[in-house]
């Protein structure tokens, strides 16, 4: 099921477990699906020089980022036999322990969803202009870099 329209992937704040649960429930009507796979990115309370990360503040070059997310979607549908896929990424403050990225892929069969999910998550990390300010408990900060 291809979707040509560019979607807005961004959500303000953390992605709640209710939102994730509802997304799963919505797929019960799609009975050609035999396998779902989900990636949840969670903000880690890294300790750097004795200071603990308490939250990440996300910003993005939103237009370019949504275009990139769209390209990744198109590439994933091209490469893998997927029934549907959904990507949500947070903007603004997400506290340690909360979810900032939700990727959800579905297919008739299981093998494809493992490969597809890894492809999509790695592409998001490498290609999408999202920026993360790691805020410490004392309100100082540093900038997160994906590696």
């Amino acid at each position, binding site marked *: 099921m291809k979707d040509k329209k560019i979607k807005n992937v961004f959500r303000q704040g953390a992605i709640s477990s209710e939102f994730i649960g509802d997304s799963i429930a919505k797929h019960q009507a799609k009975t050609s699906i035999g396998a779902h796979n989900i990636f949840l*990115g969670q903000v880690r309370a890294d300790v750097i020089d004795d200071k603990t990360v308490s939250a*990440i503040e*996300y*910003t*993005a*070059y939103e*237009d*370019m*980022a949504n*275009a990139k997310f769209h390209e990744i979607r198109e590439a994933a549908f091209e490469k893998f036999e997927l029934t549907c896929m959904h990507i949500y*990424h947070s903007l603004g403050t997400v506290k340690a322990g909360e979810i*900032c*990225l939700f990727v959800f892929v579905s297919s008739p069969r299981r093998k494809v969803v493992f490969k597809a999910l890894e492809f999509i*998550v790695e592409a*998001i*990390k*490498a*290609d*999408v*202009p*999202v*920026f*993360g*300010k790691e805020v410490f408990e004392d309100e100082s900060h540093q*900038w*997160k*870099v*994906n590696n």
Partner: protein
Amino acid sequence: MELKIKYFGQIAEVTQQEEESLEFSGVLISELIEQLYEKYTPLKNKDFQIAQNQELVTLETQVSGNEIALLPPFAGG
């Protein structure tokens, strides 16, 4: 020509603004970056990629679009 320049993350911390209009009379992206280095010296120590009309470009690319963005390292997910 007048360009709209956008700054993000730690680059915006250096420029103290997220967007500005800039008069540019050169040809290449490298010339634009030199102009920005003159205006914001600490930029020289920052790592960034450049997008023109939302596509990544190199220093050798000609300036043709009206929106240029300086993008620090990506941190999505």
